[in-house]
């Protein structure tokens, strides 16, 4: 534990970011940070956290990165919220689309790239329109970076990696279209998020030429620091968190329950799709059978043909209705199934942060105890042998302990701030996520209901016109004398 703490000490002077610290500070800082502060802050780079931190604040004391002296995490979050409201009030100023999938062939591999078009009025962008091509791996990279930078913020999921399941090919049209749609949504969600969208990673993703992007990617957190992160995370989760606040336990319980429900809905919808498909296959045979029948008949030939025609048209409508379920409702639900994984991961990370804090507090307590007992201990014979006076030795030890205690206390403070920041970030993002989830799912269901209504309306029209044609004919025949 101590070792890890020490590692953290060395590698992460900033308490709230777990990565991005190997980037040299020559890198231009985010525009909104005053230059003098960026100089003072250790290893400052394009960390987007700082956006929140610095916007609207007047940090006169550049030295104290420790926000507890200057602005409390709570006020930071207030700024976050304020910013969010501000953004809500403003019109959307960044529009991004993902389209035009194309196959890209190299000697080693074949892959698909998508065109990403950005239109924006934001000042931090050099121009107002950008067009780049990106592949799935690039999206994965972006999301990974965001995750590293914001462990307790909720990032929209990416479509799944290709898994050899059933007969879906990697280059199957439907698969590609579904993925494109999901990537489009992903980018839009990032663009709408106040923190994610103002980071450099996002900007570079949207604007950089391929070579630029590759070199930028290489500057990401090194392997060792990522290893360190993973080791810490594992250690923390093994340790477990002791006193999780109720509100986060509630969130965890909600995540579990929501995960179950959304998975169930997804499964039910898949089942409906399957049954509908099979129904459609059977229905498709009715028309031809009736047409065959009509070829044996005389007077009945016309109504039978009409009915065959009506049934064929109903089949087309059914096909379209099914398409909506497969292309829209099912992917929409699936995205939220993936979301639940994100929720759980975010809660876990928050727990880990708290576990770290608890461990550090324990370390402090035990050091203090050590100091207590040390001050009462008589010197050992050994020391007198070595030639030092007992009092000297004791003082030496106490001095050392005090040093350690001060170090630990400093670390503890940083961890406390980190914890508070993480908790607050999670809290607001949670509320934000729930709102978005509600809107997303609501509109998905409304669209489906709408689609079904349209389906029935179209079929109704088909049958009404059949009826009309038959009754009109019967009207004509009515005068035939049957006797």
């Amino acid at each position, binding site marked *: 534990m101590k070792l890890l703490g020490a590692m953290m000490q060395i590698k992460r002077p900033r308490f709230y970011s777990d990565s991005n610290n190997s980037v040299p500070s020559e890198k231009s800082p985010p525009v909104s940070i005053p230059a003098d502060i960026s100089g003072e802050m250790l290893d400052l780079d394009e960390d987007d956290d700082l956006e929140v931190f610095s916007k609207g604040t007047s940090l006169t004391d550049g030295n104290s990165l420790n926000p507890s002296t200057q602005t409390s995490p709570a006020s930071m979050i207030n700024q976050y919220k304020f910013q969010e409201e501000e953004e809500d009030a403003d019109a959307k100023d960044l529009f991004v689309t993902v389209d035009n999938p194309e196959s890209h062939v190299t000697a080693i591999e074949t892959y698909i790239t998508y065109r990403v078009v950005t239109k924006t009025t934001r000042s931090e962008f050099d121009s107002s329109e950008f067009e780049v091509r990106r592949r799935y791996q690039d999206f994965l990279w972006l999301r990974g970076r965001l995750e590293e930078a914001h462990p307790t913020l909720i990032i929209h999921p990416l479509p799944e990696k290709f898994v050899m399941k059933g007969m879906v090919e990697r280059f199957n049209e439907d698969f590609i279209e579904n993925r494109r749609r999901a990537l489009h949504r992903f980018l839009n969600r990032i663009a709408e998020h106040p923190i994610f969208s103002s980071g450099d990673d996002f900007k570079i993703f949207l604007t950089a030429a391929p070579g630029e992007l590759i070199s930028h990617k290489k500057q990401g957190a090194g392997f060792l620091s990522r290893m360190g992160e993973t080791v810490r995370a594992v250690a923390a989760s093994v340790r477990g968190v002791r006193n999780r606040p109720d509100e986060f336990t509630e969130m965890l319980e*909600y995540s579990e*329950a*929501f995960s179950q*429900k959304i998975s*169930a*809905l997804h499964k*039910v919808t898949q*089942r*409906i799709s399957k*049954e*509908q498909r*099979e*129904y459609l296959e*059977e*229905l498709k*045979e*009715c028309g031809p*059978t*009736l047409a*065959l*029948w009509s070829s*044996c*008949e005389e*007077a*009945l030939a016309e*109504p*039978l043909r009409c*009915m065959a025609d*009506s049934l064929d048209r109903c089949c087309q409508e059914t096909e379209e209705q099914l398409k909506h379920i497969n292309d829209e409702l099912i992917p929409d639900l699936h995205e939220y199934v993936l979301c639940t994984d994100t929720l759980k991961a975010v809660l876990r990370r928050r727990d880990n942060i708290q576990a770290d804090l608890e461990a550090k507090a324990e370390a402090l307590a035990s050091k203090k105890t050590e100091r207590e007992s040390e001050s009462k201990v008589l010197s050992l014979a050994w020391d007198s042998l070595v030639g030092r006076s007992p009092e000297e030795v004791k003082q030496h030890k106490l001095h050392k302990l005090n040093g350690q205690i001060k170090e630990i206390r400093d670390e503890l403070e940083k961890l406390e701030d980190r914890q508070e920041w993480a908790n607050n970030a999670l809290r607001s993002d949670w509320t934000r996520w729930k709102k978005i989830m*509600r809107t997303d*799912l*609501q509109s998905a*269901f*409304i669209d489906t*209901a*709408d689609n*079904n*209504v349209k*389906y*029935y*309306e179209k*079929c*109704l029209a088909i*049958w*009404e016109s*059949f*009826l*009309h044609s*038959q*009754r*009109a004919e*019967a*009207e004509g025949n*009515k005068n035939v004398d*049957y*006797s």
Partner: protein
Amino acid sequence: MERTMADSGSEDIAVIGNTDLTPSESQNNVRNTMFEKGTNLLKRMEISVAEAEKRTGKNAVNMQETYTVYLIETRPVDAVQEATSPVPDSLWRRYSEFELLRNYLLVTYPYVVVPPLPEKRAEFVWHKLSADNMDPDFVERRRVGLENFLLRVASHPALSNDKIFRSFLTEVEGKSLEGNRVRDRISSEGIVSSSCADSRIKALNATFRVKNPDKRFAEMKHYGDELQSVISQLLRVRARAADRLYGVYKVHGNYGRVFSEWSAIEKEMGDGLQSAGHHMDAYAASIDDILEEEEHYADQLKEYLFYADALRAVCRKHELTQYELETAAQDLCSKKQQQEELATGTVRTFSLKGMTSKLFGQETPEQREAKLKMLEAQIEEGEELVKERNVESGEFVKGAWADIERFKEQKDHDLREALINYAIMQISMCKKGIQVWNNAKECFSKM
């Protein structure tokens, strides 16, 4: 709703665009136009199969069996109209008695396309319906089918006047032997004409070739084959489609359950989800009624599936008649030839007789005389028979063709109505769907 297959009334043309059932369409007791223009019998008497009941009794091999009996009610028409209807005459009969009646009609009126009975066993079943003869839905549909059968027979110009049929409708014997006497009469009548009927029926099943087939009948038989094949296929496809559609609707019920569970963990969304869930449940439940009604139209198709069989039977019987005529004519021809040979002494064709007489000498003049006399008698008989058969055949063709024309008209009318009623049913189903999903949409909006 009690509705016989022959009920319709859609000749009541409503305003264009109005797709609701017209008042006459929804009435239970409006007769098929074919019935109305029909027979004396129907003008005087109202016939219905009102109820079905389970009975147990001992069968022919003295074992306990359970069976269903159906109540046939008849009532004079004027009494109904005056609304002073006395208690109708009624008697109970079981399905096998109907079968006996129909077989009798088949044999007695070979040139008639005899109306079919509802199916003996449930076929073209989709999974929800049971194939069990005791199932109440099956019994109910059979009751309707039997009533339809009686009405069809009663509306047929020839069949409705049959005495056995009349007795079948009204004759009640002693309490313990209900309808026995009629059954016996049917059987005995059958036996009387059965010697020719039996051989006829046997002949029907045998293969025989007719030298000069009547083209019209051959075409009709082919049509019967095609009709049977295409309706079978349609019924099979329909059953499978019904099965699938049932699945689609029922799975939506799961939405109801999950929405309800989900609403328990949400604060703002809860109410909207809950009420949307209820509509999903309603949607899932609605398929039961829809498919039950659809079964009705399947039954109409089935009736004509079996009618196709009856049509083919008439064609086969015609072939048999033709065959018998040709056989008689051929016999006559060969007898005349023999006569000629004997008379002139010339052997025109090779025959064993000719050979033996060559080898062993001719017969005596007396023998020849006797033979000639016999042949003459046979030829006379033969000529009579041929004349008879010719007349029979002519009458058969005339009667059959008239009945086939009648049948064609009826079929065209009935099936066209069936198609229209199917469309009406689909429209009603669409309207329900629109309503449910609009309701659900409203609930989702409140989420």
